[in-house]
């Protein structure tokens, strides 16, 4: 890994971090639990790293580690997206309010 690569990686990291802070600040508190489930699924993109280690199958040792890593990441991707979707499907708006029933008692 050259210094050049590290600098360009830092560049991406810093800007992505700022983008993240700006985007997440706008997420309403209402959606914070689904947000956590979603970012969890997204950061399981580490799956691409484990796929390369497993697929290239260089040593027995690296293959075993890669295999466990692919399984763990896949659990997070599949479970994470399903859970987020399940939660978001529960959020619904109030139906247009029906006219209040006629009532002869006077409200205090």
């Amino acid at each position, binding site marked *: 890994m050259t210094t050049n690569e590290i600098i360009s990686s830092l560049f991406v990291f810093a800007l992505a971090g700022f983008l993240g802070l700006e*985007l997440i600040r706008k997420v309403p508190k209402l959606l*914070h*639990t689904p*947000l956590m*489930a979603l970012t969890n699924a997204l950061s399981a993109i580490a799956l*691409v790293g484990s796929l390369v*280690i497993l697929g290239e*199958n260089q040593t027995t040792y*690296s293959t075993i580690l890669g295999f466990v890593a692919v399984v763990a990441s896949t659990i997070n991707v599949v479970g994470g997206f399903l859970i987020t979707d399940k939660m978001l499907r529960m959020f619904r708006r109030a139906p247009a309010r029906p006219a*209040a029933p006629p009532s002869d008692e006077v409200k205090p």
Partner: protein
Amino acid sequence: MRADFVDLAYLISAIGFALSLKWMTAVVTARRGILAGEIAFAIAIIATLVNPAFTGTGWFLIVLALALGTLIGIPLGLRVPMTAMPERIALSHAFGALAVGLVGLAHYFLTYHTIGRFGLAVLGIEITLGCLVFTGSLMASGKLHEMLPQRPIVFPGQNYLNFSVLGLAVAIIIVLMFRPETTWLVPILVVLGLAFGVLLIIPIGGADMPTVIALLNSYAGLSASALGFVLDNKLLIVAGALDGASGLILAIIMCRAMNRSFRNVLFGAFGQLDESVVGSSEHGEVRSASPDEAAEIMKMARSVVIVPGYGMAVAQAQHKVRELADALEKEGVDVRYAIHPVAGRMPGHMNVLLAEANVPYDKLLDMDEINSDFPQVDVVLVLGANDVVNPAARHEKSSPIYGMPILNVDQAQCVFVVKRSMRAGFAGIENELFYNPKTLMVFGDAKAVVSELALEVSGQRDALSH
């Protein structure tokens, strides 16, 4: 050439991830956000799999591992009760960190002689971070699941021990930078990382778990980012940075909602209060009401605000709460919910619990949205919430919760507090609200009381007795 195509695909994925989070900023677009994330994911996976260096065995194992992960992931995604969401999320941080740590380890043994000093340093940090998030998240999940003791475990010299473990890990990373061939140090680094994760969580009490989950979320993101540095994979860096930023913001919100600092949460061991300081002795009289009296008053009200706490979820009362709200709305009463940021056990937890009980989300109001409305509210119903409605937080300087932002329910015309008994709450702090002349205590189990209120208000109780 192939590498360029893969990078291009990763760029498209990174944009997809950013859009996914952007669409998460509103309920109406949120599910589109999931779709964007899924498509971005698929693009990245396909681009990665088109790789001529993969061997036949490699392909076989990939298919096997993906199938196995999917088989385990589906039930973990679909069969989780909403009350168990915090421990489920903590568990997925552990899985994510495990994957990151293992890939880092494999990468170390494959490339330690070629990646150079900086590469080794980043790898060392990445492996340590992965290990500590793995055990830390398992501990957090165990505490939330109540498999481990909820109370903080503290012992003399704890912080010294923690910092020595961390210092030793840093020392090993420095040695590895200059002597990469000392591979026998790597297992020690792994053990230190795992130990540090455990040590970090044991002094933290159950009440602080919302902050800790958010913080672990942030660390999990950072470890994914560190893996991106190691593999020179910009997509991982972006995804990890977005996740890290998200966890950080949530942790800050949680800390502010409890008026605590990070330092205080991580090393403070809250819940170990000196009992003698807590609770002044001079309080007024406690007045109580029966459920049918409370129902009569609520029926006459124009506006009712329900303040749910985690106690409501423990009693599984959220569906009964919705029935009560429906009955009140039929009588023409306006019903809303006031949600304190730390009402549940993780950020946004209470909203999900109520949404599950079919409470419309536009009735769920944030502390900042509803606090100025309380003087115009006729009746407040406090269900299983305690510290977040304690007016002592505003003026009682000796109280441990002094300065914590609270729901100003004492400004409403009338307050009902549903509670089993007058026993003090989780943190053992006396609640002034209970002695307020406007407050009426309704003693009993949350679910039983709310069912009774719902029956009274809807008039079904009368119908049954006639």
